[in-house]
């Protein structure tokens, strides 16, 4: 359904900066009806990759095919028709603030110049499907994050697309809402056979709904395959980090000593060094480090929670401060 061949994307230099090589020689094949996940840290190129699929970005080299059509070769008018068959949902929902829920879902149908009666039936059915019929006349500002994403999903499905692109669709949601949105996406995939391509920095999302996964780093796909085999036997260092991250999150049976808990945040640049220091400390069993999903920041950085005896925690913090020369922002 989606086929990317030899894709490179270089953004021209701006204001004296070097040109950015966002993607380098990427191949990707997503089968019809599949839920395919692309996981990577921020800046890995996954967002650019996703935008190539519906032509919001054009590749510098290579070809993008969706349902047999070569997206990068389409004339503007054809591209618009092709886009109607490629739905997209967003991290920040991107709903029109000036339109009600109902009118938001009607938007893509109006743009496709569908008859009024068709629009009315379709919108009612979609709102029913995402469980928001009773909120039809509300404005987006009156909805919760989860409800907003449901509107986003209904809107993306309005023109019966064959592909649904999910751009960090659950990253702005809390864990419970995330799982309800993922359930909805899985259900839609099962019922309609729509192909899902999603990008995320949360491994739990990939584990929850994806059939296959590709791990991205530095504009390249460094590992790919069935979700179980990739995460069960991670080969690349980035994949290993994602796996470790979830293992820590899952082992929550460690006795909580709330008075000794220490939080710190690190940016994406510091991540590599932080992992290197935290790993051994955790393996020694003296401290427990967890990453709350709520604390995963949009900048790609993370907030860690260190738990353990005071001297052990301090020792770890000291090693982070001095040996790795990190400016970790500690707050209790």
């Amino acid at each position, binding site marked *: 359904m989606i086929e990317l061949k030899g894709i490179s994307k270089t953004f021209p230099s701006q204001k004296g900066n070097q040109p950015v090589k966002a993607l380098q020689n990427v191949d990707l094949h997503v089968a019809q009806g599949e839920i395919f996940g692309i996981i990577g840290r921020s800046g890995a190129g996954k967002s650019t990759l996703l935008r190539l699929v519906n032509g*919001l970005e054009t590749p510098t080299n290579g070809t993008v095919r969706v349902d047999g059509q070569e997206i990068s070769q389409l004339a503007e008018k054809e591209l*618009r028709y092709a*886009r109607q068959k490629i739905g997209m949902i967003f991290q920040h929902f991107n709903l029109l603030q000036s339109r009600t829920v109902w009118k938001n879902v009607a*938007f893509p149908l109006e*743009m496709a110049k569908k008859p009024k009666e068709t629009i009315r039936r379709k919108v009612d059915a979609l709102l029913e499907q995402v469980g928001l019929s009773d909120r039809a006349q509300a404005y987006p*500002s009156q909805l919760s994050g989860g409800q907003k994403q449901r509107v986003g999903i209904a809107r993306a499905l309005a*023109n019966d697309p064959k592909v649904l692109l999910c751009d960090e669709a659950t990253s702005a949601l809390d864990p419970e809402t995330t799982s309800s949105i993922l359930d909805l996406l899985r259900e839609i995939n099962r019922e309609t056979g729509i192909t899902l391509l999603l990008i995320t920095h949360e491994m739990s999302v990939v584990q929850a709904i994806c059939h296959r996964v590709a791990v991205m780093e530095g504009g390249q796909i460094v590992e790919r395959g069935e979700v179980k085999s990739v995460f069960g036997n991670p080969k690349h260092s980035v994949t290993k980090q994602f796996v470790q991250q979830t293992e820590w999150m899952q082992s929550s049976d460690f006795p909580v000593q709330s008075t000794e808990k220490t939080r710190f945040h690190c940016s994406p640049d510091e991540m590599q060094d932080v992992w290197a220091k935290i790993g051994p400390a955790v393996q020694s069993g003296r401290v427990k480090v967890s990453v709350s999903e709520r604390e995963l920041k949009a900048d790609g950085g993370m907030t860690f929670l260190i738990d353990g005896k005071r001297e052990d925690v301090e020792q770890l913090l000291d090693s982070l401060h001095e040996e790795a020369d990190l400016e970790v922002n500690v707050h209790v």
Partner: protein
Amino acid sequence: MFNEIDWATIWQATGETAYMVGISTFFTALFGVPLGILLVVTDTGQIWEKHWVQKAVATVVNIFRAVPFIILVLFLFPLAKFLVGTSLGPTAATIPLIAGAAPFYARIVETALREVDKGVVEAARSMGSTRFQVVVNVLLPEATSALISGLTVTCVTLISFSAMAGVVGGGGLGDAAFRFGFQSFNDGMLVTCGVLLVMMVQLVQWIGDWFSRQLDKR
């Protein structure tokens, strides 16, 4: 001091001012909105990137905004004769008023449209909207509240501009205040005209705020 007020003249002048401001506000919006749209959509990274259009529109807008209004009035009254057949009276005054206010409003429109969330524009594009559809169905509706409050500011500016245009032959409250108040040593006329102008500004502001609030769904 108020016993020498010629109310007939006052009401006629009030009518002229309302007429000048009304007509010129309408045309200011009519020209200002498209100009503002052009300033935004033709800029780098926007939906219709055309640098030469951007530069051309920006230059024209800046020139008209840089010329002091009173100079604009003197320059454009002759043009008014050509366009509306007379260089005197309230109708003629609308020409420099529009020329002065439309570029001003264009910049306000530009700012309002730039405030619209880029993600929403991207979403609309991803659904297969044309550029025109993005402008009409996304940019303008999402910015309506800001466009209205900007038009209110512009209208208030037009009221004060109209008083200036009045003095050089446009008529209206500015003209009445100058001729029948200031030059005739009639303080009552002067003050009454001033008070009426203030009341007009208040009324416009009040109506504008009300509409802007009604349309703000954020």
